[in-house]
Each structure stands twice: as structure tokens, then as C-alpha cells.
């Protein structure tokens, strides 16, 4: 009776600190998460020394892929109750006598960059996954007779007065396409815009000039 028998206890690890840490990290990541948008095509922008961060709101993005397809994207603006994306879609639809149903508009608002002619927009919205949508993207037409990119920019600017424009082009995209994009912007009086680039070190010193 003298001996105290220790109860056989399974080695239990106190997980409380671990859980604490995990929840903290989790909360941090949830709050800082800005999701990578669904990419229409991989785009590898050139580098520059610029340190200006990309505006996070009121931004229209024009993407130029390797194969010179052009995609367009706008966000809903700082006030999402204005439904800018929806309005722009309806406006451009009415130009082409296409009526979008409320469900289509709702779905369109959740999509990201698109690169289809307006005539194919209905099919594009109806597609049920990202792969099907990516396969449909033939680029936005920019011919002089049917410059849809210019039209998208015009309506985007009509419904969002504070719109900034960023051009995100692949380094290997050809100049004539880039030129068309710049022309479409300038036709709509967008003379100030941003070129999206990857950061690079600036290593120039005064000695080089002497």
C-alpha cells in the first residue's frame, strides 16, 4: 500500500498554444488575403525600377498576352453598390442589341478578366468553369471598324469617373498590338495610364556620368 501507483496516462500534448498561434495566423491570412485573380493567360510583364504600387480600386486592366490577344477587366469600384461592372455590360450589350438577363449580369460581376467579342459574351458567361472560359477567349476585337476595346474603355469611364487604367502586357507582345491599345486609350482621352511591371533594382550611380 505504501507505493503510490501512477495512473497510466497516455502522453497528452497540450495543444492550446499551437491552436492559439494557428488561429492568429489564420486570421491574419484571411484578413490580408487578396486573391489571385483568375488568369486568362499567363502574362509575364517586363521589369522596371518603379516602386509605385498598383491602385487597388477603380482600376481597369487591359492585358496583352504573348499571342497578342487582348483582355479587359474592370472592378466594381470602391462602392460596390453602384454595380459598375453590371452597368458597363448592359451599356455595351445595348450597343450590339444584346439583352443580358439579371442572372447573367450577376454572374458577370463575379468574373474577372475577359477576352471575348461582345457577340460571344452570353456563351462566355454561361460557361461553367474557368477552363471552358479560357478556351473561349479569342481576345477583344480592336479593328478600326469594330473597336470593342475602345467601347469598353468608354463605357467604363462613363460609369466610373475615378477610373485608373493599367496596361499589363507580356514582354514579348508585339508593338503594333500595344500601339492599338494605346490608341484606343487615347481615343477616349486617357492620356495618363499605368504600365504594370515587375520590380527591378535601380543601380545607376553618379560616377557613370563623369
Amino acid at each position: 500500500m505504501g507505493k503510490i501507483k501512477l495512473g497510466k496516462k497516455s502522453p497528452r500534448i497540450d495543444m492550446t498554444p499551437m491552436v492559439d498561434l494557428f488561429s492568429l495566423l489564420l486570421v491574419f491570412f484571411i484578413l490580408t488575403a487578396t486573391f489571385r485573380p483568375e488568369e486568362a493567360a499567363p502574362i509575364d510583364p517586363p521589369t522596371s525600377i518603379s516602386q509605385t504600387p498598383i491602385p487597388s480600386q477603380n482600376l481597369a486592366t487591359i492585358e496583352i498576352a504573348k499571342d497578342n490577344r487582348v483582355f479587359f477587366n474592370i472592378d466594381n469600384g470602391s462602392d460596390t453598390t453602384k454595380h459598375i461592372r453590371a452597368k458597363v455590360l448592359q451599356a455595351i450589350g445595348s450597343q450590339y442589341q444584346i439583352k443580358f438577363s439579371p442572372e447573367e449580369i450577376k454572374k458577370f460581376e463575379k468574373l474577372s478578366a475577359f477576352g471575348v467579342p461582345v457577340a460571344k459574351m452570353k456563351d462566355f458567361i454561361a460557361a461553367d468553369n474557368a477552363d471552358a472560359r479560357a478556351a473561349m477567349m479569342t481576345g477583344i476585337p480592336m479593328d478600326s471598324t469594330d473597336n470593342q476595346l475602345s467601347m469598353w474603355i468608354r463605357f467604363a469611364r462613363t460609369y466610373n469617373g475615378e477610373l485608373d487604367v493599367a496596361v499589363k502586357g507580356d514582354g514579348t507582345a508585339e508593338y503594333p498590338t500595344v500601339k492599338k491599345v494605346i490608341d484606343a486609350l487615347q481615343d477616349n482621352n486617357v492620356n495618363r495610364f499605368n504600365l504594370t511591371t515587375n520590380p527591378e533594382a535601380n543601380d545607376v550611380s553618379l560616377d557613370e556620368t563623369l
Partner: protein
Amino acid sequence: MGEIIENEKPAKGKKKRARKHGTHIDMTPMVDLFCLLLTFFMLTTAFNKPKVMQIALPEKPKPGEKVVAPEINQSRALTLILSDNDKVLWYAGLADPTKPPLPVLNETDFSKDGIRKLLLQRNKELFKQIYLLNKDVTEGKLDISQDSLETRIRDLMRDDKSGPIILVKASDGVNYKNLVDIIDEMVITNIARYTLTDINPVEKMMVRNFKNAKSSVAASN
């Protein structure tokens, strides 16, 4: 998330009561879930926000509107023609077919000793001023805010009287990277006045002649 560990004494009485369980929560599933969510969020977060380079172009003339081209001082004018195979052709002065001879084309590239050297040489004054101003601020000699630093640099650029006036013209075989690179060089070398314009027929001819001459030299060697 406290945990209470009860003393698990064996029941003394005859009645075997249902043993009171300690309120010991098994946290393993929760930890599993957290781990999963954490991994998911870590992988989907785009940390590296891309940067942007701002660019301002002169307004396009409206159709029917007549625009008087601004007088460019011939000694300050510098035209860079982006050409294929990552080359830059440049000439100083203006190419006016009514006033021969046409300026001579030179070839350079996007390397540090190429276009940057050329631009730095021509923009020495302004570059030095801005460089020293920036240096004073980073070394703490001059205590001004970022905004007023930018204003000062803008003023310096506006008052620049000797630096080059650069016209960047791209021919069709050029890719987007070249365009961004050349604008980047302008920013690096603090060029105050530059713009993007279209290549004109005279310059097209000059480029053609230059390439022909080059290929004939190569052929004769």
C-alpha cells in the same frame, strides 16, 4: 480554451457511478482544420503586389483640329527609333528632308553602356542635380517629406533648359518589353522631356538605308 483535469480517483463506494468526465476537449480535428485553412490561405495570397510605371502622353489632336508642332530646339532634339532585335537607332537633331544633309543614324542597345550612357551624357546636369538631392535626403542631410522631394524634382525637371528632348519612335518589329525598357531608361536617367510618337516616312527611309548599308558591309567582309 482552458482545460480541467480531474483527479481520476477510483470510486470507493459500492455504487459504480458513471465517472465524471473531465472537460477535456480533443483539439486535434480543430488543429487539422486550422492547418488546412492556413495552408490554403498562405498559398492563395498574392503577396508580391505588382508595381506600375506611370506614363503620360500628349493629347491626340481631334480630327479636323490643326496642331502646330511645338518648336524643338535642334541642338536638344534626340530621336530614338526602337528597332527589331533589341536595338536602338538614334540620331541627334531633326530629320528634315528639305534641309539636307539628313542626320546620321547610330546604333546602340539596351545595355548599361548602350542607351543609358548616351542618355546620361546628354542629361548630365539634370541627372546630377536630382541625384544629389536624392542622396541628401537618403543620408539625412536634408529633412524634407517625400511629397516636397517630389515637388522639387518636378520643379527641377520643369526648369531644365539644357537636357535633351527625346522622341521615342517604335517600328513594327518591336516588342512590349523594349517599350517598357526605354521608358524605364528615361525614368532612371531623369529625362525631363520625352514622348512616344509615330515613326515618319523620312525616318523609315533612314532606317532602311542604315540596314542596307550594314548588310552590304557585312556581305563585303
